[in-house]
């Protein structure tokens, strides 16, 4: 909601573009696509860019005539930056967003916890960046517009999806009329209230948490670094919690928990929002002017589909799951879904993998969501305890934290590292362990020179990292044997690293991966480790990679 007298899209800092539907002539002329993506939000646009990365054209449908409005996602984590980099879209994010590593938690005005998110000089990006979703959509939209493989159709609502032998037939209503489109695959990126989910008769299952929050965006010249603040039992919201995040353009995100029993109409009345925000600002020592941008009401849910795929419809982002805000994993999780579904679907469409590769999508991404649920549920129970027992223990922990540092850890928001894929995933998790390499995890990064990281050497498709001194002729033969699995395979070798970055850089990689005695790693197009071999085993690599990713009957 915006303040009285303001238009629906009258923002203090952001100019919403206005889009129109394509002409009927055009949509009747072009009505066959390999992949349709429903929802041109950040997840949908990023999915389109990921498919384009592998040469797969897409059409994006969105029922709105502009971007999503209001206070939405603001935190992008490191792995999302790497994902944006892989589609060539990270530059404007680096320029605009505010990076952060630190969080502070206060109880009754006293700091009880200062946590640092895992970060070392080996990393290319910071653990977290704050940026308004409006900018995320703007930057992705610019990248989409610059890509010849993506067509975006705004003001175009998908109202029907029927299965056919070779794909699905979509019915689209736009401002000019109604038409049909034949597509092979549908990615449903149409958000928490997904109409594709409703059309397919699917339901999200899970839990709702009792606490409710007002989320307000405020513009002010507040001099405080980009540090996440959580306030428990403060003067301005006794017994309740407050979260404060800094965003670009002097915007501040203030989330405050509402008292039990307060009617929603009461809670979201502008006068009440202003009064509560003013009290919070006094509490944090801000005395200057401020302007209200937007506000809404929120309660935590952990909801997910049982299966993220329904025949030729694949659900990505909030259409598949709703996670609590406390772990800042809603959009980040959605982007990871989009990349995961994107590279796998591209392999199927490019004739490199069987459709069975898509069976790994739900175990990997639903697994990641359940992992987030577990951690975010802990955070949600601490932020808004659901019962007397949880409240007593939370209050006991907070009281202890005033004198005992260890107890402050209960207030850690657990913004954890990306999930590790195993059972049912597209990884070779049965291989014996090699050094400290974790199969199914993202490849750890390492700085190789002032401007280059290990992640910069990874190819667009699979990458084979041979950290052994292997004869180049043998390597060529391995690459040739893997041609059917991945004609774009990138090879990184010990000698290439030594040549370009020196022996110390190579030693740093070995020390980071614990592979001083040599190892070979296969990395997926999304940066996850498929498998690792302690002893150079070309035949084994070819056999396992072909079985896991090759096309049946071709290899």
């Amino acid at each position, binding site marked *: 909601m915006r303040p009285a007298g303001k238009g629906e899209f009258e923002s203090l800092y952001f100019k919403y573009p206005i889009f129109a539907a394509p002409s009927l002539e055009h949509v009747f002329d072009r009505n066959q696509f390999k992949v349709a993506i429903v929802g041109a939000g950040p997840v949908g646009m990023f999915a389109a860019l990921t498919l384009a990365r592998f040469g797969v054209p897409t059409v994006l449908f969105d029922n709105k005539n502009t971007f999503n409005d209001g206070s939405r996602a603001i935190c992008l984590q490191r792995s999302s930056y790497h994902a944006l980099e892989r589609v060539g879209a990270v530059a404007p994010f680096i320029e605009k967003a505010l990076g952060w590593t630190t969080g502070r938690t206060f109880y009754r005005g006293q700091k009880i916890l200062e946590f640092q998110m895992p970060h070392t000089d080996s990393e290319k990006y910071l653990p977290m960046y704050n940026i308004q979703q409006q900018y995320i959509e703007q930057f992705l939209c610019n990248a989409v517009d610059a890509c010849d493989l993506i067509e975006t159709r705004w003001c175009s609502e998908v109202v029907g999806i029927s299965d056919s032998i070779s794909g699905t037939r979509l019915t689209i209503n736009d401002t000019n009329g109604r038409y049909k489109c034949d597509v092979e695959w549908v990615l449903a990126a149409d958000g928490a209230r997904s109409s594709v989910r409703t059309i397919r008769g699917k339901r999200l299952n899970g839990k709702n948490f009792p606490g409710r929050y007002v989320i307000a965006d405020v513009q002010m010249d507040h001099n405080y670094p980009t540090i996440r603040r959580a306030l428990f039992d403060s003067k301005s919201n006794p017994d309740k919690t407050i979260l404060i995040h800094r965003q670009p353009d002097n915007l501040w995100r203030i989330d405050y928990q509402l008292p039990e029993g307060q009617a929603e109409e009461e809670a979201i009345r502008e006068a009440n929002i202003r009064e509560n925000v003013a009290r919070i600002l006094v509490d944090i020592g801000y005395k200057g002017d401020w302007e209200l941008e937007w506000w809404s009401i929120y309660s935590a849910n952990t909801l997910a589909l049982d299966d993220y795929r329904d025949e030729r419809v694949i659900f990505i982002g909030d259409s598949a799951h709703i996670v609590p805000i406390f772990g800042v994993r809603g959009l980040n999780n959605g982007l990871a879904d989009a990349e995961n579904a994107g590279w796998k679907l591209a392999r199927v469409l490019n004739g490199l993998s069987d459709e069975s590769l898509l069976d790994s999508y739900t175990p990997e991404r639903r697994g990641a969501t359940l992992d987030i649920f577990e951690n975010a549920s802990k955070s949600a129970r601490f932020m808004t305890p659901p019962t007397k027992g949880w409240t*007593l*223990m939370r*209050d*006991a*922990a907070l*009281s*202890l934290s005033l004198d*005992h540092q*260890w*107890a402050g850890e209960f207030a850690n928001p657990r913004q954890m590292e990306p999930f590790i894929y195993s059972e049912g995933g597209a990884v070779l998790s049965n291989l014996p362990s090699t050094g400290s390499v974790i199969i199914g995890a993202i490849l750890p990064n390492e700085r190789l020179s002032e401007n280059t990281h290990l992640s910069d050497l990874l190819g667009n498709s699979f990458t084979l990292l041979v950290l052994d001194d292997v004869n180049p002729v043998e390597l060529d033969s391995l690459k040739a044997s893997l041609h059917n699995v991945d004609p774009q395979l990138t090879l990184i070798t010990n000698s290439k690293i030594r040549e370009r970055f020196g022996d110390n850089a190579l030693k740093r990689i070995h020390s980071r991966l614990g592979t001083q005695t040599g190892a070979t790693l296969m990395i997926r197009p999304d940066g996850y480790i498929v498998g690792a071999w302690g002893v150079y085993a070309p035949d084994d690599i070819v056999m396992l990679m072909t079985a896991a990713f090759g096309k049946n009957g071709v290899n």
Partner: protein
Amino acid sequence: MSLEFSKIEQVYEELAKALDRLADQDREIFLCKFSLLLARETDDLAWVIEMIEKAQNRLGKV
């Protein structure tokens, strides 16, 4: 290894006095804090869980 009876009796008395000193609304939270502080002094999680189980025995169910 356990406290001899005279010492556990002293714990009993100190807890009684502390519970009496505290306001009604602080008693439960005090016991929660006390439990967390004690639990932190051991590295035997199974033992702590067992104590949580034992302490629930013979209490009236609502």
